[in-house]
């Protein structure tokens, strides 16, 4: 946790820092030499409890929300309004038989879900979830986060390869290809933020956005380059977490369930958990980079504690994920790759240039106009001309007709 003194804000310290103070109080029972380690352990326990809890809530809200988007009720049988559905699901997946294919590579098959969940959990270590609420305030926190999310790719591959199933392998190949393709724009958009904030440390990036002009916050999304970066980031993050419309690795209609076809029972539940945790962590990083982290959306809303803002922003972005899932059909593999390499990547590179321009044009309205014009112009041009004839139309079959 940060030891920095609590800066000026209007919310009572006891509420804003409730969790930090509680942790300090708990730790104070231990001898001083144990305190730092015990504090870290407490924070880890908190993270390991809170996010799976959110995961359980999200699954039921997702199913209800998707249902409503399709004019259905969604789950409403287990408990009041169906809110105990995740409990039932959990019991089911825990008591289900764990089937391992006869030909599977048992060790790798076993390790894949574990490494996935562990690496995803590691990402939470650097997320500032409130004022002074960050487990590891690393100097290179952003880099740490992305190195952890890059490590999840390998577990996906391990899962797909070790199952000895063509669908698993195809799903894993798709997943890895997709994750690699979209990781490039994902990282490049964060570079834009790093260029402006001048730091790789996430608490510092939040601090850089914590000012207000009048009542409006200085979030990066409210700048031309920030908006463009945020949009690209959102697209790439959706692809990274294999969410619809980028859920090709799990496309049921083509490859059963992709890389986790051969997983059942608790191991499948771990994959499911890992996927949602990845969604939370990538939303958390998006919130931190572009939406001001834990700072309030309007200056007078600072009476509400900081952690509330962080978690509500994360939940809003989760809702957008669900909303997109309820709306968009799945892309085709060639569309996915074309979009990544021929639209998203060039646009991100251009955006980096625009960010540099923004940085060196100094204060004033001129930089707003110039960068907006460049970005919008190029977006329209690329959308109209660049994507023309990029195989977005009906498919032409070369062999089967």
């Amino acid at each position, binding site marked *: 946790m940060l030891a920095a003194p609590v800066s000026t804000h209007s919310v009572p310290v006891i509420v804003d820092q409730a969790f930090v103070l509680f942790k300090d109080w708990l730790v104070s029972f231990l001898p001083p030499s144990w305190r730092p380690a015990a504090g870290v352990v407490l924070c880890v326990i908190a993270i390991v409890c809170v996010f799976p809890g959110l995961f359980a809530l999200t699954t039921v809200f997702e199913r209800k929300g998707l249902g409503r988007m399709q004019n259905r009720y969604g789950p409403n049988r287990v408990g009041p309004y169906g809110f105990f559905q995740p409990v039932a699901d959990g019991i089911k997946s825990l008591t289900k038989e764990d089937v391992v294919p006869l030909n599977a590579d048992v060790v790798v098959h076993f390790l894949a879900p574990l490494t996935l969940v562990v690496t995803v959990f590691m990402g939470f270590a650097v997320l500032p979830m409130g004022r002074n609420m960050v487990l590891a305030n690393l*100097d*290179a926190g952003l*880099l*740490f986060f*992305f*190195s952890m999310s*890059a490590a999840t790719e*390998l577990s996906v591959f391990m899962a797909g390869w070790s199952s000895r199933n063509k669908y698993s392998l195809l799903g894993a190949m798709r997943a*890895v290809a997709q994750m690699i393709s979209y990781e490039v724009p994902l990282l490049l958009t964060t570079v834009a933020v790093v260029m402006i904030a001048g*730091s790789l440390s996430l608490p510092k990036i939040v601090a850089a956005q914590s000012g207000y002009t009048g009542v409006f916050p200085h979030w990066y999304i409210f700048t031309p380059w920030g908006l463009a970066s945020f949009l690209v980031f959102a697209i790439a993050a959706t692809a990274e977490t294999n969410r619809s419309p980028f859920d090709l690795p799990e496309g049921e209609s083509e490859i059963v369930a992709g890389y986790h076809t051969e997983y059942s029972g608790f191991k499948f539940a771990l994959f499911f958990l890992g996927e949602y945790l990845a969604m939370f962590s990538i939303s958390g990083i998006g919130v931190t980079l572009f939406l001001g982290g834990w700072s309030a959306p309007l200056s007078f809303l600072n009476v509400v504690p900081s952690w509330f803002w962080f978690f509500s922003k994360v939940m809003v972005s989760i809702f957008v994920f669900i909303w997109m899932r309820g709306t968009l059909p799945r892309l085709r593999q060639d569309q996915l790759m074309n979009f990544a390499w021929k639209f998203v990547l060039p646009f991100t590179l251009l955006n980096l240039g625009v960010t540099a321009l923004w940085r060196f044009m100094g204060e004033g309205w001129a930089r707003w106009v110039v960068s907006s014009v460049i970005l919008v112009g190029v977006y329209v041009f690329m959308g109209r001309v660049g994507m023309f004839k990029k195989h977005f139309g009906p498919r032409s079959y070369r062999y089967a007709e």
Partner: protein
Amino acid sequence: MSPIFYVLAVLTVAGGLAAVLLKNTVHCALALTVAFAGLALLFLNLDAQFVGFAQILIYIGAVAILVVFAILLTRGTETPQAGVFSRSWFVGLVIAAGVFSVLGWAVLQSARVLPQPSAIPSVTVHDIGVALLGRYVLPLEIVALLLTSATIGAVIVAMHEKGRPQ
């Protein structure tokens, strides 16, 4: 040399050995990843955060993936029936020993040639950035040029030749 160092060293060396000795190529690639991870942890143990995370990001996130992709897309993943040692293992061993001794000699000499820093320098990401774009900008640019030409070369190799059916 803390106990952590020894644990990590054993992990890294074991990963490396497994990568060489295992029969199944994909297992080798995964073992190589363990070695990469061990190396990254060693960097972190030395307080070199940037290098450690970059090691994970690039080697585990990209290089290892590239290796497994290359394995899957080329020869399949059947376990070879014969042993894993090639016939020219002795020559390989000699070359490896030669490289190792040169590197070891250089490392051992560096302690004598370079003056020992009095305190452990605290290197922040900011310092690394300044150094890369200040003092070491020329090497950086040369590396960038090299990589760009390599990428272009790869694209040209992969491109369809005109006039040939796809």
